[in-house]
């Protein structure tokens, strides 16, 4: 039969590769979502992202890879786990978002407004190097790499005054062992 809808919904795309890839990587089951939007009701950043959580899940279901991987929501989600806790279908949206962040980076689709990937890299480098986070060093390295010099510029002096920003950090022994751990984790992910 011809005619009918001018631009029919492409049913073929529903249940496409993205949902299965996300499930494989995160253990979350996006296909179980029936769009009740309970996740978005409780999400603290639903009002600011380009998508709300239930919309993101729907885009995953319908295989909208580019829209999902370039979404700003991925980098504004606070990982507070409210969505995963309340979902009646037990869709672990928080785990799904974690997997999508990694996929977004791998596809070089990260939303340009975010500095989170830079921060994550600096943070994990510091853990590899020292074993623990030295906050002052982390803040300085982030400012230098992200070039966001003025945001919260008054915080460091205030924290120093309040004794909340020690000027030296701890190092834990076993750096070589840690380097090996990070290397094996990266190799393990590639498998």
């Amino acid at each position, binding site marked *: 039969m011809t005619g009918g809808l001018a631009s029919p919904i492409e049913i073929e795309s529903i249940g496409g590769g993205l949902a299965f890839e996300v499930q494989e*990587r*995160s253990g979350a089951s996006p296909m179980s979502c029936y769009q009740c939007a309970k996740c978005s009701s409780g999400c*603290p*950043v639903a009002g*600011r992202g380009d998508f709300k959580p239930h919309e993101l899940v729907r885009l995953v279901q319908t295989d909208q890879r580019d829209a999902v991987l370039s979404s700003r929501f991925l980098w*504004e989600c*606070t*990982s*507070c*786990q*409210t969505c*995963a*806790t309340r979902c009646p279908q037990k869709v*672990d949206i928080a785990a799904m*978002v*974690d*997997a999508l*962040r*990694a996929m977004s*980076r791998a596809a070089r689709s990260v939303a340009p407004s*975010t*500095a*989170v990937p830079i*921060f*994550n890299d600096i*943070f*994990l480098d510091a*853990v590899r190097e020292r*074993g*623990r*986070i030295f*906050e*002052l060093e*982390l*803040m300085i390295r*982030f400012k230098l790499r*992200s070039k966001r010099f003025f*945001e*919260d510029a008054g*915080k460091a002096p205030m*924290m120093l005054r*309040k*004794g*909340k*920003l*020690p000027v030296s*950090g*701890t190092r*834990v*022994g*076993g750096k070589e*062992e840690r380097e*090996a*751990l*990070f290397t*094996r*984790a*990266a190799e*393990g*992910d590639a498998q």
Partner: protein
Amino acid sequence: MTYAFFPGCSLDGAAKDYHRSTLAVAAKLGLDLPELKDWICCGSTAAHSSDPLLADALPAKSLSAAGGSTVAVACAACYSRLKTANHHIAGDAALRARVAHVVGRDYDGRTPVLHLLEILCRDIGTPRIAAAIRRPLTGLKVACYYGCLLTRPPEITNFDDAENPTLMDRLMEAAGAEPLVWPHKTECCGASFSITDSSIVLELTNKILAMAHAAGADCIATACSLCQLNLDMRQKDIESKFGRRYNLPVFYFTQLLGLAMGCQEDELSLSSLVVEPKALLQAKGIGR
């Protein structure tokens, strides 16, 4: 009672006051908290949003060194990461083997992990807390704020009621204070954006402070390094951005317990609070 203490990175930095007040309260209760040997960072949000295997391996490395002792945790984010790694590793033999390969030794995922609130409220118990109170916090209306990661997800943390936890409320009650019924106990403060995007943190902390204020709180009690820092340190910025002035002191729950147990103010590092609690404490006849 002895626990292997995992203080977490922030307790040696921005949350030194949480560290000091925890040890002061522990001393009053005969609670021994030797540090877990060579513990390393839990990996926090940076690890779980980058690399799931690393996010399980970092906690596994620390927890496998506990030698069967129960691990005590102060920070809600560390607590969440340690318990999540345990949950993953104990429930999945294949993952356990992969983590063992990454860490360089096998770990079964079964080292018990408890937050300080669970230890004080359940293991020590409120009768013993009440017996240690020297200067009750009479008339102090406290909004107990748990943040997101202590209770969520409940099948992993198994902490308390996920929507209305009361462990901290019970401790405050034992200390003579008046814990408030209020709805934002487990809302998120946006801590993972503390350094990367303060606009998110300001928006979320403003809502929490507004709700505590509306509920009639004199102060907020917290059980997480980052929650305390954000709620306390950002009140000036909130005033300039949203035009709301709260002037609500934000304590660690250990600081309030310590005050009630008769600890000295410097043992509790009260001077590191950004919103000055002095006037409030004087008005309520707390401290001295």
